[in-house]
């Protein structure tokens, strides 16, 4: 899951080296935190959050087999 978020985020931003993904796994849910360079935030959120929504959809699809809820937070 961490790898997927990294791949997605790095392909969108101008500063891939500053992409940081942390994962906290709970009993029922996985919390993924995505941090990018300040000037790249718009590139992973998009107009009206369109990119962020697409990213969450993809992460959700990847997690569908794990039977756990996944929360992607952009911090």
């Amino acid at each position, binding site marked *: 899951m961490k790898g997927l978020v990294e*791949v997605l985020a790095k*392909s*969108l931003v101008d500063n891939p080296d500053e992409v940081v993904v942390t994962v906290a796994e709970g009993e029922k849910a996985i919390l993924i935190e995505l941090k990018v360079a300040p000037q790249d935030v718009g590139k992973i959120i998009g107009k009206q959050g369109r*990119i962020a929504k*697409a*990213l969450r*959809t*993809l992460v959700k*699809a990847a997690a569908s087999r794990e039977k756990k809820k996944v929360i992607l937070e952009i911090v």
Partner: protein
Amino acid sequence: MREIEVTGKTVEDAISFGLEQLGVERSDVEIEILEQPSKGILGLFGQKPAKVRLTIKSRVIEKAKKFLDDVIAAMGVKVSYEILQREDHLLINLYGNDVGILIGYRGETLDALQYITNLAANKNEITPRRIILDAQGYRERREKTLIRLAERVAEKVRQKGRPFALEPMTPQERRIIHTALQNFEGVYTYSEGEDPNRKVIIAPKR
């Protein structure tokens, strides 16, 4: 495709002048030598400069491949794909055992992946190309389903004389409905609401 033709004293001169104009590196272009320079007779008559054509290479396909390979590996799904060059877009067709995971409910995962693939592959490209993702003919099947649905609902609207709202759809899906009913006697269509909850309304003509 962006290209320019430039001249210079030597071929080398012409190339570096062209690269400067385009603001790109040598590895970003394809070089075609149109005319070799000629010194002319005694360096006086018939002097001709070198002429080259520089064409900026598109990296969209390369980047789309790299992106999809990485995503497929990171998701751990068994999926392959083929890339087909169409006139006004690239069609990437996904297939394999796990293709359903990449389609998702009503194609929402496929749409999300298509959107991000477009952004990733066209990033920093001077000549972007539209990329359409399909999965084992899903989009065509969905189109047929939508047309059938549209005609069925339109028939009912015509009989009962009352408008009917379809469920929310993406712009592409709404377009399919509008097109399908354009020449359907007795009804007209319009959309209402804001994305992602915008829906098509089929209404009786008075």
